[in-house]
C-alpha cells in the first residue's frame, strides 16, 4: 500500500514537473535569422582637422550564429561630396579600409558620403555639417579613496557655445613588467646574453564603450570633469605606468542621438530585465534598393586629442620563484627560460637559474616589447 501511494505521488509529481518544468526549450532558428541578408556597415567619419587623414572601414553584417570575422567590402568607390561642389575620393588601403589623405575643406560646406559597391549598389548619407571641435582643455585623473582604481576626466569648453554635443573615444596603453628577469637565451646550441628585454612590455586597448556628453542643459558650453573611463586597479593597467589618449569629437544632435542609441544595443538578451531590442541604422541609405539597409553614421568634424600619463604604481603583480638550477646540458631540455648564470663555489662550469615563461616573458600577456614612440 505504501509503495502504491508512493508511486501515485511520484506520478502526480511528475505531472506537475512536466507541466511547469519540462516545458521544452528547443533551438529556434527560423530563416529570418539564419538566412538574414548581409548589409553594408560603414564605420568611420570625415576628419577635417588640418593635416589629418580620414578612414572609413566597410564591411558586411553577419548572421548572429556566424562566428567568423565580418566580411570586408572590397573595391568600393567611396567619395565625399560637398554641397558646394567639392569632391574627395577615398582609396582602398587595405581590405575594406579606405583612406583619404589630408585635404583642405571648406568648413561652411555640408558633406555627404557616397558609396558604390563592386556589386553595383549605391549608398548615400544625408548631408552633415562640419562640426568644429573645441580643443581639450585638460585631462585629469583621480585615485578613488579606497585605491581601487583611477578615474579619468576630460575638460573642455566652446567659447562660442556652438558645439554642445560631444563624443570621446580613447586608446589606452600601459607599461608592465614580469616578476622574473631573463638575462640569457638559447640561440642554436649556445647560451648567450638575451638580445631583447622581454621583461618590460606595453599593452594597448581601445575603448569599447561609447562616451557621450552634452551641455544643452547649461547656459555655457563647458564640459567639466566628464568621466572618460574608470580603470580598476585589478585590471593591472596601473602597476607601472598608464597612458590614455583621449579623442574628442564634436557632434550634431542627430549624431549624438545615434551614438546614444547605439550605446544601448548590447549583445545581451534573454534576461529578465532586458531592454526592448532597438533598430538603429544611422544616416546612410541605399539608393538602388530601399530594402537594403546600411549601418553607420557618417559625420564630419575636426578632431582633438590629448594624452595623459598616470604613474601611481597601484596594484601588485604576481610573485614568482625561480623553478630550478640546471646545468647547461639540462637547460636545452627545459621549457623554462634562463634567468641568470650562477657559478657554484669551486667550480668553473656555470649553472643556470630557471624561471617559467609565464613569469618571465611579458609578450605572453599580449603586450609588445617595443616602446611606443610617445612613451616618456
Amino acid at each position: 500500500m505504501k509503495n502504491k501511494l508512493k508511486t501515485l505521488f511520484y506520478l502526480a509529481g511528475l505531472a506537475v514537473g512536466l507541466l511547469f518544468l519540462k516545458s521544452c526549450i528547443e533551438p529556434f532558428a527560423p530563416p529570418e535569422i539564419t538566412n538574414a541578408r548581409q548589409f553594408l556597415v560603414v564605420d568611420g567619419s570625415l576628419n577635417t582637422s588640418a593635416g589629418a587623414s580620414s578612414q572609413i572601414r566597410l564591411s558586411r553584417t553577419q548572421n548572429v550564429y556566424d562566428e567568423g570575422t565580418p566580411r570586408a567590402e572590397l573595391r568600393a568607390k567611396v567619395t565625399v561630396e560637398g554641397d558646394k561642389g567639392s569632391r574627395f575620393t577615398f582609396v582602398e588601403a587595405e581590405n575594406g579600409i579606405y583612406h583619404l589623405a589630408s585635404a583642405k575643406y571648406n568648413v561652411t560646406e555640408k558633406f555627404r558620403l557616397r558609396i558604390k559597391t563592386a556589386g553595383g549598389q549605391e549608398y548615400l548619407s544625408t548631408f552633415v555639417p562640419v562640426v568644429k571641435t573645441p580643443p581639450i582643455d585638460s585631462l585629469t585623473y583621480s585615485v578613488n579613496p579606497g585605491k581601487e582604481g583611477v578615474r579619468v576626466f576630460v575638460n573642455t569648453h566652446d567659447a562660442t557655445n556652438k558645439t554642445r554635443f560631444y563624443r570621446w573615444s580613447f586608446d589606452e596603453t600601459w607599461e608592465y613588467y614580469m616578476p622574473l628577469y631573463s638575462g640569457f637565451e638559447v640561440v642554436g646550441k649556445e647560451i648567450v646574453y638575451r638580445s631583447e628585454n622581454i621583461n618590460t612590455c606595453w599593452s594597448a586597448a581601445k575603448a569599447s564603450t561609447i562616451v557621450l556628453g552634452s551641455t544643452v542643459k547649461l547656459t555655457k558650453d563647458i564640459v567639466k570633469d566628464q568621466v572618460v573611463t574608470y580603470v580598476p586597479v585589478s585590471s593591472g593597467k596601473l602597476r607601472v605606468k598608464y597612458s590614455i589618449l583621449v579623442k574628442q569629437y564634436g557632434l550634431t544632435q542627430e549624431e549624438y542621438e545615434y551614438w546614444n542609441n547605439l550605446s544601448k544595443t548590447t549583445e545581451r538578451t534573454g534576461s529578465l530585465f532586458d531592454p526592448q531590442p532597438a533598430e538603429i541604422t544611422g544616416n546612410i541609405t541605399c539608393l538602388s534598393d530601399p530594402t537594403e539597409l546600411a549601418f553607420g553614421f557618417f559625420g564630419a568634424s575636426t578632431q582633438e586629442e590629448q594624452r595623459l600619463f598616470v604613474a601611481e604604481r597601484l596594484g601588485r603583480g604576481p610573485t614568482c620563484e625561480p623553478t630550478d638550477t640546471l646545468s647547461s646540458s639540462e637547460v636545452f631540455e627545459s621549457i623554462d627560460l634562463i634567468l641568470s648564470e650562477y657559478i657554484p663555489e669551486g667550480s668553473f662550469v656555470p649553472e643556470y637559474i630557471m624561471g617559467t615563461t609565464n613569469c618571465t616573458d611579458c609578450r605572453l600577456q599580449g603586450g609588445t616589447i617595443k616602446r611606443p614612440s610617445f612613451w616618456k
Partner: protein
Amino acid sequence: MKIIRALALLISLYAGGALAQTKPEQLINGQFNDIRFREFVRLIEAQTDYYFYYDADKLDNLQLYMQVKDQPLRAVLAQVFKDTEYTYAIDAQHRVFITKGVAIITQLPSDSPTQEALTYAAPGDDEQEKLLATAENKLHEIGPRRVRIPPGNSTVSGYVRNAVTGEPVIGAAVYLQSPQIGVTTDVFGYYSLTIPRGRQRLLVKSVGMRESYRQIMLYSDGKLDIELLESVTALKEVAIKAGQDANVAETSMGQVKLSIKTLKQIPTVMGETDLLRTVLTIPGVKAVGESSVGLNVRGGSADQNLILFNDATVYNPSHLFGFFTAFNPDMLKDVELYKSTIPARFGGRLASVLDINSRDGNKKKFVGSGGIGLITGRLTLEGPIIKDKSSFLIGGRSTYSNWLLRSLESQTYNKSRASFYDVSAHISHEVNEKNSVYLTGYLSNDSFRLFGDTLYGYQNQFASLKWKHTFNAKLYGSFTASQSTYRYAIASEQVPLNAFDLSFGINQMSGKAEFNYLLNAKHTLDFGVSTIHYKLSPGTFQPRSSESLIIPDALEAEQGQESAIYVEDRFEVSPKLLLTAGLRVSVFNYLGPKTVNQYVPGYPISKLYADGTQTYEAGKFIKTYGGPEYRLSARYLLSGDLAVKASYNTLRQYIHLLSNTMVASPTDIWKLSDTYIKPQLGDQIAVGLYKNLRGNSIEISVEGYYKNIKNFLDYRGGDSLFMNHEIETAIIATRGKAYGVELMVKKMTGKLNGWIGYTYSRSLLQALDRTSPDAPNNGNFYPSNYDKPHDLSVISNYRLSHRFSLSLNFTYSTGRPYTPPIGKYTIDGAQRVYYSSRNQYRIPDYYRVDASMNIEGNHRIRKLAHSSWTVAVYNLLGRRNPSSVYFQTRGGVVSGYQLSIFGQPIPTVTYNFRF
C-alpha cells in the same frame, strides 16, 4: 389543422352526451421519490381505478420526483409531463392514454347539429403551469383594491428569485405580451415595470429557469416578488428556450455572457473550469502567449481590460503566470464581457470590461461543493446565516504541487516551487424589502521558483461592500466601496553577490453611487458618480543578503485620483428600434507628493536632456486630464429573429501597464498618467448583424469594428523599464488602429452544443512623432505584440446521455509577431547586434486540441453527495506551440530558443462533488 378539427367534430358528433356519464374524479396521494414511470403507473393503478395505456419502452427513462396530496390525476400528470414531449388524455372510463405530441381525443362530438363542435383541448403548457403552481393560479392584487380602476399606468416592481436557493435571477425577462412591454431584471434580480392598470398577465423567462407567469390586478404602484424554479434537467429533456433571444433583442453588441454552466463544459488544462481560458475562446479575445497573464480584446493591450469581481478591480486575474484563472469556479455565477458597447457605468479602460459575479450563498440550506484534481483542490461552503435573509459563500483553492515537487528525488525538480492559493468569501444580507447589503472579500497568493533560481511571488487582495437601496418602485440605487491591492516581488539568490529583492505594489480605493430610474415604459435612466484613489509603489530594489553588492534603490510612490459622472438612457423608440445613449465625464488628477523630472525645453524627452527636478507637495494637483466619453448604441429589428446593431464608444484610460518583455508577465509595472504620459484615448465604431435560427436555438452573429487608440505606450529601443527613474524617457507615445470581423455561430441547446468563432483582426501601431529616430519601423505602422490576424475556436460538447458528455475544443491562431536579431556588425571597435524592424516577423502558428469527458453520478436529487468525474487531455496532439521565443548570448554567440510550456498532451483527472 382543418383536418383535426373536422375529425374532432366527427368524433364529438358520434359520441353524443358522453360527458354526462363521467365518473367522479378520484384524488391521488403519494410520495414519488425517484421512481420510474412504470412504477408510478403501478402505484396509481393500485390507488385508483385509472388504467394506463402507454409505450413502456419510450417512457422507461422518465424518472419522477414529486409529492402529491389530494390532487386530481390531471394535475399530477400535468406535472409529470411538464416540459416533455408527452401528453395525456383521460376518458370517461378512466382510461389514461399517454401519447407523444398530440393528445388523443376521447370524446365524440355531440350529434346535435346546432351545438358547436366540442373539441377536447389537451391541457397546454399554460394549463399545466396553472395546475402546477398556485402562485400562477392566484390573482395577485397590487395596490389597494378599488372598484373602479382609473385608466393609466402604474409600476410593479420586485425581485425575481430562485425558489430553491433564494438567489436573485439576473437578466430574467419580465414582460407583457400585449401590449408588448418588458424589462429585464438587474444584477440583484430586481425589476420594475410600468404597465397599464387593470388585469394583466406578467410573463417571466430566464435561462435555466422554468418559464412562469403571474396574473395580477394592478390597482396602483406596488411590489411583486416572483420565485422561479430551476429547470431540472434530470426530469425532462427539453431545450430551455427562455431568454435566448438576447442575441437579437438587446442593444448591446459585443457582449458575451457566460454562465457557470457554459464555463463548466469547456475542457481545460487542469480539468478545472477556467474562466479566462473560456473567455479566450470568444471571438475577438486573444492572449499573447499560452502562459501569459493578459487578455487582448480587439487589438487592445492587456492593461486595457477592466476586470471586476463583484465591483472590485482585479489587477492580475491569474495564477502562476496564467496557468490558472485566479477565481474558484464554484464561487462564480457568471461573467460578462463587454467588448464593443461599454455601458456608461464602466470606465477607465479602453478595450473591454470583464464583469465577474459571484453567486449568493444558498439562503435555504447548508451545502458545499468541491473538487480534487491531480494538482489542485478546491472547496466551497455556503448556507444561510439567517434563513431566507442572509447567506454566506466561502471558497478556497490551493495547489499541492509544492509538496509533490518536494517528494521527487530529482535535484532539479525538488528545488523548484510552484504554489498558489486563493480564498474568497461573499456574504449577502437582505435587511428588508428595500435594503440589501453584500460583502465580498478575496485573497490570492502565488509563488514559484524554477530550478531553484529566481523566486516570483504575487498577491491580489480585494474587498467590496455594496448597499442596495430601493427608493421607490421607479428608483433604486447601489452604493459601493471597494479596495484592491496587488503586489509582486521577485527575489534572486543564485549568485550571492547579486542577490536581490524587487517589489512592486498598487493600492486602489474606490467608491461609487449608481442609480437606476425608470422614467416611463420607454425610458430607463442609469446615472451615477464614482471616484478612485490610486497609490502606486513603482518599485524597490534591495540587496537580499549582507553579501550582496546590489545598491538599494527605490522609485518614488505616485498618487492619482480618477473621478467620473455618468448618465445613460435606454430609450425604446418602438418595438423595433432601441437606442442607448450615454455620457460619461471623467477627470484624472495626478497628485503630489512627487518629484517630477524636468527636461530641456525644445529637445526630445530623453535622459540626454534631463534638467533637474521639481518637487510637489502632498495633495497638490500636478497634472489634470479629463473629458467626455460617449457611449451610443442602437438596435433595429429587421424581423423577429434578425437584428442589426451599431455602436460608437469613446473611452479614456489613466493607468497603464508598462511592459516591454515579449509576454505580459507579473513583473510589468503599472503607471499612472503624469506630466509626460498622457491618458490613452480610444474610440470604437462597431456594426453587427444578428440572426437566431430554429427558435432561437442557433445564434449567428457577424460583427465588424474599427478602433482608434491615441497615446498608446510603446517602448523606445534599447531602454529598460526596470527601476527606471526617468520612465518617461523610455516611452514612445503611439497611435494604434485595430480593425476586424468576428463571426460566431453558437448553439447552446440540444445534444450537440458549442460554438465556432472566427476572427480576422489587425492591430497596428505608429509612433505619434513619426520623424523621431526612435520611431519604430521608420515611423510607419507596425504590428502590435498581439497582432494575430486569424483566430479560430471551435468549442463542442456532445451529451451522450444524461451522465456522459464529451467535449472537444480546437484553437488556431496566427503566430505572434516578434523582433528577431537578424545580424551583427562591428562599429567603433565593439560588436553590435541589430534587430529587424519592430514586430516584422512571426513565430510559428498556434494550434491545439483539447478533449474532456464528464461523467456525472446518478441523478437522484436527494442524496448525500452528488459527484462527477472530469477526465481531460489538454493539448491532445502534443504540439509544441512556442509560447515565447528568446535569444541568449552564450560564448559570444547569439542563440535563439523557443519555449513551449505545454509541449505534450497533459491528462488530468478531477473529482468534483456537491453536498
